[in-house]
Every structure is written in structure tokens, then in C-alpha cells.
């Protein structure tokens, strides 16, 4: 276990270093004047760009600027976000819970649905259920998230007036603002805070705003998991140990669930990283369309307003998520597959 953790830690540092160099390299393709624009806060400053360039050392060699930047980041200064009108680090903690909440609801549904659909379609291969779920998967795969979200919004908000966009209704927002003493924001997640404060009205309102975003996220992401589960299951069902189990007198349930499914989960763990990446990308589109001020929304907004510190911080954050995901995958592997040991 010890060397394993050490190796992972090294990997974490390596990936974060690599990502930061990469992003910094991209940023350096700006002219110093353009990068200086990021530091403008008053109109007078705009007139004297060269001075800004000099003050901030924007025409220094790459490594000096990079070193300076790393020093700042290490000190907890990720820069200033134009979009949020706050330091990136502070803004991050404002946006992060919103995205986390969305994925906290979506992820269990994705995992449960994906495994269930994949298993069922592999067992009943080529029957109506299999065909239906494959059609569903390929359509889910072909649907652009933002488009699907727009159509859902059009039908369920526009036509049925059921599920509005946003994070929270105006009335509820007002209520929270006016009752800071009885409603404390423990986590920043509306539904969770609602439950923690014992305020069901807030929780339900948050949930109502989550229905469409979570539906979108689940339908778009579940296709990948389902497909991997299905093909893994089909492969396992054709293996010899399945015949051995049948020859022992096992019934279908035992063969499918006890023998084949557990083995088929091993390749599924492999795509967990991809699932996380998909969920990240999905969150961007979902938050943009449903107007939820989370990290995805922040990122898209920053991209259109050339808010480079945010983009860089976000890439670093993604690198962190990537490494943690990989760590979890390794541990999961070892938990499922006795042939693998963490050394």
C-alpha cells in the first residue's frame, strides 16, 4: 500500500505540472499586450498597456513567468475572475457546490441504470428489450447535450410549465436571503441545505429545478456505461466458467448475477474515468442551457469573455479530478479483482 500511495502522489504532481505547463504554453501564445488586458480594472490603465506589461513582467522569458505563476498558485492566488468579479479561488467555492449537486444526483442514476440496462440486454440478447435499449443508447450517444437540454426546456418548461430553469425559484431565493438566521448555507447545495435546515419547501424547490438537468445528464452519459456493460456481459457469458457453473446445476440468476456480472464489472471500471470526463463536459452544456451558475457555466462564460485565469484554474482542477478518479479506479479494481494487488 505504501509505495502505491507514493507512486500515485508522484503521478498527481506530474500530471498537475504537465497540465499547468501545457496551459501556460497555450496562454503564452497571446501577445503580452493581450495578456495585460486581463489586469485592467480602470479605463486609465487601458491607455497604458506597455506599462502594465512591464509591471507584471509579461515580456519576461517563459520560465520566469511560469515560475512566478506557480509561486502565486502555491500561495493560493489563482488570479482574478472577470466573470465572477471575485478572485478565482473564492469564486470556485461558490460555483463548485452547484455542479457537485447536479452530479451527486446524476451519478448514482447513471451507474444504476447503466449496469441494469447493460446486464439485461446482454442476458436477453437480441430480444425486443435489447434492441430497444440499444436504439436508446445510440440515440443518447448522438444527442448533443445542449440540444437535448433545450428541447426538454422547450417542452417541460415552455409547454407544461413544470420544471423551470435556474437553481432555485425567485420566492425561495428571497426567503433564504431574508432569513439568514434560520437558514444557514452549510454546503451551498440547495437540496442538501434544505434538508439540513429541515426546510422542505427549499429542498423541494431545489429538486424541482434539478429534474431536467439531471434527466439530461443521465440520458446523455448512461449510453457509454450501458454499452460497455452489455459487451462485457456478453463476453463473460461465453466464457468457460459460466458453463462450469451451469454444469454444477446453477440457475440463470446465479449464473448471471453471481458469476458473470461481477466479472463484467471489471472492464466497466476501466471506463469510469471516461464517465467522469463525460459528466464534466455534460455539466458544461447542462449548466449553460438551464442557466445554473455552476462551474460549467462559469467556464463557458469565461471562455466567451476571454477570462484566462479561470480557464487555467479549471484545467488544473480537471487534472486533479483526473488523478483522483484514477486512484479510485485502482482501488475499485483491487476490490473487485483478487488478481490485482496494490503495490
Amino acid at each position, binding site marked *: 500500500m505504501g509505495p502505491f500511495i507514493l507512486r500515485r502522489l508522484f503521478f498527481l504532481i506530474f500530471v498537475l505540472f504537465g497540465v499547468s505547463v501545457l496551459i501556460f504554453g497555450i496562454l503564452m501564445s497571446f501577445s503580452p499586450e493581450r495578456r495585460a488586458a486581463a489586469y485592467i480594472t480602470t479605463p486609465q490603465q487601458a491607455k497604458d498597456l506597455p506599462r502594465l506589461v512591464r509591471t507584471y513582467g509579461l515580456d519576461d522569458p517563459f520560465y520566469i513567468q511560469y515560475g512566478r505563476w506557480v509561486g502565486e498558485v502555491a500561495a493560493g492566488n489563482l488570479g482574478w475572475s472577470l466573470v465572477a468579479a471575485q478572485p478565482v479561488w473564492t469564486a470556485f467555492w461558490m460555483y463548485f457546490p452547484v455542479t457537485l449537486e447536479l452530479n451527486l444526483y446524476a451519478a448514482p442514476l447513471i451507474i444504476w441504470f447503466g449496469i441494469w440496462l447493460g446486464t439485461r440486454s446482454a442476458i436477453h440478447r437480441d430480444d425486443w428489450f435489447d434492441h430497444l435499449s440499444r436504439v436508446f443508447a445510440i440515440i443518447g450517444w448522438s444527442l448533443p447535450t445542449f440540444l437535448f437540454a433545450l428541447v426538454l426546456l422547450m417542452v417541460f418548461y415552455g409547454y407544461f410549465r413544470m420544471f423551470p430553469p435556474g437553481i432555485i425559484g425567485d420566492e425561495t431565493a428571497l426567503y433564504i436571503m431574508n432569513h439568514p438566521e434560520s437558514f444557514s448555507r452549510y454546503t451551498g447545495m440547495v437540496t442538501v441545505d434544505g434538508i439540513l435546515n429541515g426546510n422542505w419547501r427549499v429542498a423541494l424547490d431545489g429538486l424541482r429545478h434539478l429534474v431536467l438537468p439531471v434527466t439530461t445528464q443521465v440520458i446523455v452519459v448512461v449510453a457509454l456505461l450501458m454499452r460497455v456493460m452489455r459487451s462485457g456481459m456478453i463476453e463473460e457469458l461465453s466464457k468457460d466458467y459460466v458453463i462450469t457453473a451451469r454444469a454444477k446445476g*446453477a440457475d440463470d440468476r446465479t449464473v448471471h448475477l453471481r458469476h458473470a456480472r461481477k466479472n463484467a464489472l471489471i472492464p466497466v471500471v476501466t471506463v469510469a474515468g471516461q464517465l467522469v470526463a463525460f459528466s464534466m463536459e455534460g455539466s458544461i452544456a447542462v449548466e449553460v442551457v438551464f442557466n445554473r451558475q455552476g462551474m460549467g457555466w462559469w467556464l463557458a462564460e469565461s471562455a466567451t469573455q476571454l477570462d484566462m485565469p479561470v480557464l487555467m484554474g479549471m484545467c488544473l482542477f480537471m487534472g486533479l479530478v483526473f488523478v483522483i478518479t484514477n486512484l479510485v479506479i485502482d482501488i475499485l479494481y483491487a476490490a473487485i479483482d483478487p488478481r490485482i494487488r496494490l503495490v
Partner: protein
Amino acid sequence: MSADMAGDDRRDGRRETGAGAHPILEAKDLVVNFYTYEGVVKALNGVSLTIPHGITFGLVGESGCGKSVFVRSLMGLVQEPGRIDGGELIFYPGPPSGDGPVQGVDLLRQPESYLQRIRGDRISMIFQEPNAALNPIMTVGEQVAESFLFHRVREMSEKIAADLGAGGGRTTGPVKAVLRVLCGISARNPHARVLRVLNRVPVLKRWRRRLLREALSRSAELLGRLGISNPEEVIRRYPHNLSGGMKHRIVIAMALACKPVLLIADEATSNLDVTIQAQILDLLKGLKETEISSVLLITHDLGVVAETCDRVGVMYAGNVCEIANVGELFRNPRHPYTQALLNAVPKMAQTGPLESIEGTVPNLVDPPPGCRFHPRCPNAGEPCREVFPEMREMGVGHRVACYFPVEDIG
């Protein structure tokens, strides 16, 4: 292990079984086809075979002749895209008692639930690749225990109930009473719906654990009997940290757990090195005396046949072409294919080059008409090309499917 050793009169304890013995299994005109993209592979072309009770029956033939398909259809385990398209498989599950007629069951006309009860209990099977045949992510003990959990729940529940009654174990009071009730239910009907529901309730699940513990201890005991030195420890291991020979014994243990009346060994020793092969064969031979009544041994190794079998069937391209007692077959092969097969085995006193069989195994999508061996047969004549030869009795218990058999030297 050379084939001609069987030519000597070695009747050491082996029963030469003729037509008079009780059958344990009768296959009649079994037809199995595989519906593939290239066409219909006619894997079994009306196979008829009788396996007498209490003997070791060998089934030999080149790879691809349908031996494995035959045994898989016995177990009801023919895989997609294969289908059993005709025939009968009469199985006599009970021990033949005295001279009364034994009740036979046609396995092909039984529901899947019946087959599940038979498999692993009355008929069981040893697979050729222990590596692939074991589930890589379950402990060896769990896998052997499954055999007990599928077929011996009733008996084990009775035992647990009796143990609880005798006052053994740490459990006391109401829990014990509940456990006893549960064991009582499962002793009466192991598949009761009540149990299935109760198995999901946290505290009551413990009943299941008792059962599992009992099954595991039975597995350990069985492994001990098969010559594994520290069974208590081995049952907790996973297949990947066992040696090849050990895995083989595990696979055998799974098959033997419920003392089947018919044990099928599908190429059980083919990929082993010679010493382990000898060990396993000895083990099987010993078990044959004590645990099981009949063995069906599938192999392409004539040496193994000569060593272990009482009666032999020879298969070629989806047909049985000759059946005889082992001594008779080696001494006096009547089918030209059998003779060619025997000639292709090196002898102790071999001087010249080995003979091989001319031509190649036919493609079973489009097999030759008539006798499937005729294109390669030295004796082939006019009728061979048109109609498949019926099995004929030539000598006591010696059946041959050939128009122009090799002449009798016995």
C-alpha cells in the same frame, strides 16, 4: 502408455460389459446442428450410443469429430448457435435395483428446471481447461461449495437444525429458535419463497451464513479426500494462486461433490504434463471404485483409453463408427477408421515410419454423402457413397457401422 499394451490380456478387475448390463444412458439418433454464417454445421449426425452402468466408457476421435458436442448435449449445455434437432437421450438416474426395470427419462424432453436438478448432482462434468473453467474472482471454496448449495440444501439444513437442537454453537435463545424454524423450512423445501424474501433481511440472513459455512466445510473435507494437503487454507484462495494440478483437483472436486452416477471427463487430462496426467488418471480410477458408478471419458489419446476404459466408442465426423470392449477394439478393430487410428499410434516395437490417415477431416457444413469416411477409406465401395451404413453387431458387444469392415482376426 502405448496402445498395444491393451492387446495383452489385461483383465485386471475390469468388467467386460456386453449388451446384457443395465444402461445408465442411451443416446438414440442424436442430431445436433450449428447454424453459423458459413452454413449449417452438421456436428452430430444421428449418434446412437449406450453407456452401461458401472463402467468407464471411452469416447475417442480426432478433434472436431463431435465428442465434446455430444457430452454437452448430454448436459443440456449446447451453446449458441447450436441446436439439438432430434433424437432421444434416455438417462436412468436411480441405481438399478435388482432385476426390476429401471425408470428412464428422456433428457431432451425435460424442462430446464429438471436439468438444473440433474446437473452437478446425478451427472457432472470435468472440463479440460481448469484455468478457464474456474471463475477467476471467486474463491475456490465458494466454487466447490456451490455444488452443495445447489443440490444439498435440504440435507445440510437438516444437519444444521439437528446441531442446533443438540445445543452446539454459541447461538442461544430466540435467535436459535428462529434459525431452527428456518432450517426446518429449508429442509422441507429449499426453494421456498419465504426463504428468498427472508434472505434479504439483515439478521435472518445469518441462517444463510450457517449454510455456507456447512457447505465450505464439506468442500474442505472433499478436497482433503482428493489429496490436497491443507484444504482449510486452500478453500480461501483464488484460482490464480493455485498450481495447475491443484486447479485440476478443484475442478474434479466440483464435479464429485454430490457423488454423481455419471461423471463426464471432457479431455480431462489432455493438456497436462505426463506425471500430473498419471496422478489425475489414478485419482479418477480410485474414485471410480468408491464414489461414482460410471465414467464417460472423452479423449483423443488412445493410450489413456487403453489404460482406463472398459468400453470404447470411436467417433468420426459426427458419427459413431465402432463400439467395442477395450480389449476387443485394440485387438480386433473392424472399422477401417479405427484401424487407421490405431496404426497412427507409435508402438513399443515401432520400426518403420508411422502411418497417417490420407486426406483431411471433412468440412461438416457440406459433409460427404453416405459414409462420411468414404473419401479417405481404403475399403470404400459403391454403397458407401450413397447411404450411411447402419450399425451392425459383429461379435459379442462389438458394433460397427461399415459395409466393408476389416476382416475378423479374433
